[in-house]
């Protein structure tokens, strides 16, 4: 598959395009990180994150690709890995207990919200994901989900978001009582 085809597929929301990139460049990206003191597991994680960044850039239409996709992915991987190394270094200086407490709290909160998202209907999940993750406009969401127009998409998104807020607030208050 050519680079232009890959981009076109991502623009259409076809996730098979990143499957293709993952398998094609796995060895190249993972080897680069392993050679820079990473494990294969860390390398895999970074490469997956890089592909997600790439996906979002294309979907957000904020990408002007002036090089090959492989070159671009390589630079994202490299930057993410440098950031990760910096993060590791910083962690070793900070108080681990404080970080752990903050992480547990945040994880708990996220777990509740994640549960609420799963409790939403499939269409709501799609609308919210296309809006908040893929960064699509109402017009694009309408086209992708076959709604009649952008206003329908906007109303749907509004209702879905309201439903999610309500679910989360209910869960939060229960948690508050439990505390």
């Amino acid at each position, binding site marked *: 598959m050519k680079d232009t085809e890959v981009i076109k597929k991502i623009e259409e929301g076809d*996730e098979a395009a*990143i*499957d293709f990139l*993952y*398998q094609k460049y*796995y*060895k190249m990206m*993972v*080897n680069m990180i*392993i*050679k820079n003191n990473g494990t*294969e597991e860390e390398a*895999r*994680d970074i490469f*997956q*994150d890089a*592909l*997600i960044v790439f*996906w979002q850039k294309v979907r957000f239409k904020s990408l002007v690709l002036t090089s090959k996709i492989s070159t671009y992915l390589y630079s994202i991987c490299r930057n993410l890995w440098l950031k990760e190394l910096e993060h590791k270094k910083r962690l070793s200086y900070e108080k681990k207990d404080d970080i752990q407490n903050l992480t547990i709290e945040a994880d708990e*909160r*996220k777990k509740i*919200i*994640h549960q609420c*998202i*799963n409790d939403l209907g499939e269409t709501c999940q799609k609308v*919210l*994901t296309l809006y*908040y*993750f893929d*960064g699509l406009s109402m017009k694009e969401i309408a086209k992708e989900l076959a709604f009649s127009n952008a206003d329908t998409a906007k109303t749907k998104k*509004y209702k879905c*978001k309201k439903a*999610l*807020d309500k679910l*989360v607030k209910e869960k939060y208050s229960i948690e508050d009582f439990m505390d």
Partner: protein
Amino acid sequence: MEIQDKIDTYLMGRMSERELTSFESELANNPKLQAEVDFQNDIISSIQDTKRLQLKQRLSSLETPPITTSSFGFKPWAIGVSLLSLSVLGGLVVWNMNNGKEISPTITEDKHITRSIIKPKNNIVTTEENSVVETITHKEVNNIIIEEEKPSIVENTEITKPVIADPSTLVPNPGGIDETEGIRNAGHENNMIDPLEQEDTHISTKLTPVVKQNKSMFHYQYDGDKLTLIGNFKSDTYTVYELTQQKNSPLYLKFKDNFYSLTNNNGKTKKLELVTNENILSELKSR
């Protein structure tokens, strides 16, 4: 714009500079709005994380090519070539032995080089051309056997003399002199120390004296900062020792198993003199 839309636009980083300034000042004065923004931030980042996790799970389930962990990236054919080379070399050795020929060791120029770690000091030592050279009469020096080496040549080199951190340390000379060019920077061309070359050593200092070629003449100039060796030192490794770190204390030169003292002569040319003091000799030999 409704407040929910405003929060969305803010959290997704889509506000204009003007909108952003206005919204942030509103946030600073409205704790209730700030609490709502925090809550919405949790929700939006969870929506994004959920999708991110789904994509990662999808990618993780795909088949990927195996990663070879060898940093040398050996290929089967490379191993084959290596084995073949070894067997050819082995065959040659056996052939040599069977023909009764003696195998002499080859001395390469690196053979004499002792690597060291230095603490540089910014004393610049400059080579001087056309120095007065006197004939040396010392028989030990004249007995030196000259061997061929292939030194690298640097003319008019500026050499930084290091501070010698440990008086007991060995000071190596990394090479000899070129007969035609005369002046040679002993060691690295630009006196930069490559950290990769500092391995396998217990030596903590290095002095790189200026060496001037002059066949069968062995003199020196030393003014406390700069050491110039004059003579044909190309034949073997020489070593300069410093027993104390005082500026005016003498240095000692080891060359072909002899020790010579290098006293501060204010930069004048002086013949090499054998060390006669037994205590100093035994101290030098013990190093």
